[in-house]
């Protein structure tokens, strides 16, 4: 048997096996990867230990929602390090993380995975990758603006706005729950405000500069971190 036919035979899969073995994902070329991506993420708050990941999977095991994610936290960390920017930023993983910090506490290398997820959420919004109809990202954005303008979060208006933007049917579905809360004085449609809201908005806008993200890729601190 010549070389070619051995190859062909071992890859001549019947249909059942094909289903299992077939590579479904698109293959990426090295040139398509964004290597600066990992440094950007590593430079954000608490991201510096990203380089130390040993791919043990403890994070995925500790995560209570990992089985719903398209990439588990372990995979996400590796994909960040390889530079799979688009895949990571459009994944469901980022927006399914509920910030329970189980991974962060369990990680044997001390990587603050929850904070890495936060950095990814921010990048996903900044780069306009976030799923436009996903309530989780819409909620974060609405919450952000509400507090920016009023200083406080008002649960009632926040939820109504979110459902109107994403899935008005949910608003209808949750009406009974809302009513139950309302008669018990636990929710209202009033917008809460602080007294000094103008000063607060000014304060928040004064830190507009996003220098934490705009990291110098070759900073000595980063080189040191990647040596760990």
């Amino acid at each position: 048997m010549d070389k070619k036919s051995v190859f062909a035979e071992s890859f001549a899969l019947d249909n059942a096996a094909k289903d299992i073995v077939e590579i479904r994902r698109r293959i990426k070329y090295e040139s398509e990867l964004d290597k600066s991506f990992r440094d950007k993420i590593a430079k954000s708050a608490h991201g510096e230990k990203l380089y130390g990941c040993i791919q043990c999977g403890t994070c995925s095991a500790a995560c209570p929602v990992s089985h719903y994610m398209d990439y588990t936290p372990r995979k996400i960390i590796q994909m960040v390090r390889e530079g799979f920017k688009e895949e990571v930023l459009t994944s469901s993983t980022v927006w399914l993380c509920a910030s329970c910090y189980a991974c962060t506490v369990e990680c044997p290398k001390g990587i603050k995975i929850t904070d890495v997820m936060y950095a990814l959420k921010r990048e996903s919004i900044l780069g306009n990758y976030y799923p436009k109809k996903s309530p989780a990202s819409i909620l974060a954005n609405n919450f952000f603006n509400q507090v920016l303008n009023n200083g406080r979060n008002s649960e009632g208006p926040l939820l109504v706005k979110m459902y109107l933007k994403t899935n008005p049917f949910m608003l209808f579905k949750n009406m009974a729950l809302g009513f139950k809360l309302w008669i018990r004085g636990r929710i209202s449609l009033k917008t809460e405000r602080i007294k000094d809201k103008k000063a607060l908005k000014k304060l928040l806008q004064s830190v507009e500069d996003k220098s934490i993200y705009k990291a110098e890729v070759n900073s000595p601190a980063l080189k040191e971190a990647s040596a760990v």
Partner: protein
Amino acid sequence: MKYIYYPGCSLKSTGKLYEESLLAVFDALGIEYEELKDWNCCGATAYMAVDEKKAFVLAARNIALAEQQFKDEEEVNIVAPCSACYMILLKTQKFLEDNPEDMAVIKAALKESGLDYKAKAKIRHPIDVFINDIGEQEIAKRITKPLKGIRVASYYGCQTVRPYSTFDDQRNPVTMDKLFKAAGAEVVDWTMKTRCCGASLTGTIQEVALPLSYIILHEAKKRRADVVTTACSLCQFNLECYQTNIDKKFKTDTKIDVIYFTQLLGLALGLEPKKLGINRLFAKPENLFRIMEGGKPVYV
């Protein structure tokens, strides 16, 4: 010692009963407090997801405000009952401590608006205050209606002990259990103490969130708990208000009383149920009242 009370947004709305019961228990135990003036939202999980620096400045403003309000006091102890607020304030303090450059930026920004961030305040959870400042013995002395025969499943939630554990073990916290033992209850030893309840996902991606709450309720029932006590407004909301949705989805019966730990403590201290916001619960905690009066539980 006097404490500065930082309620946070949810204790003024869905968690109103948490505020009512907490302050009633504070009064009953003679704990002095003052509400933080013109406090703002801590930023919760959403701010960090949009803008990191703004998230830190938002939390730092509250700390600076507290330091200003208590400038004549020896110590500034901020009591933050909501887990998210508590964790965010701690996180901000620790991050700024470890990152002098960011500290400088945020201090300067606060100075602009007339505030001085001294990083001196201590961030405290009410459980921490009860256990470490008041003490179990002192609390045990004040119990007038012991919780005899009540099996309590203490549920701490995520952010009370994670990622920072300032007063308890991260994997198997016991402080809330100690409180209820002091109040005469039987505590349930279970593994769900710090399991995620689904948090804000109940509002956004319910398919993912409901199973999480279901696991906790189911396990509490399996361990024959009479009541689940929580220390976070989102946990209480998810575990109590979604019970009918959960039962419909999983075709089970998860009916169990889920109340704030301060409500149960308040009842043991002999406080009026109405003062503790019991009337704001979706269902009157029948089981609890029955057992307290020496009867048998209605639903098991």
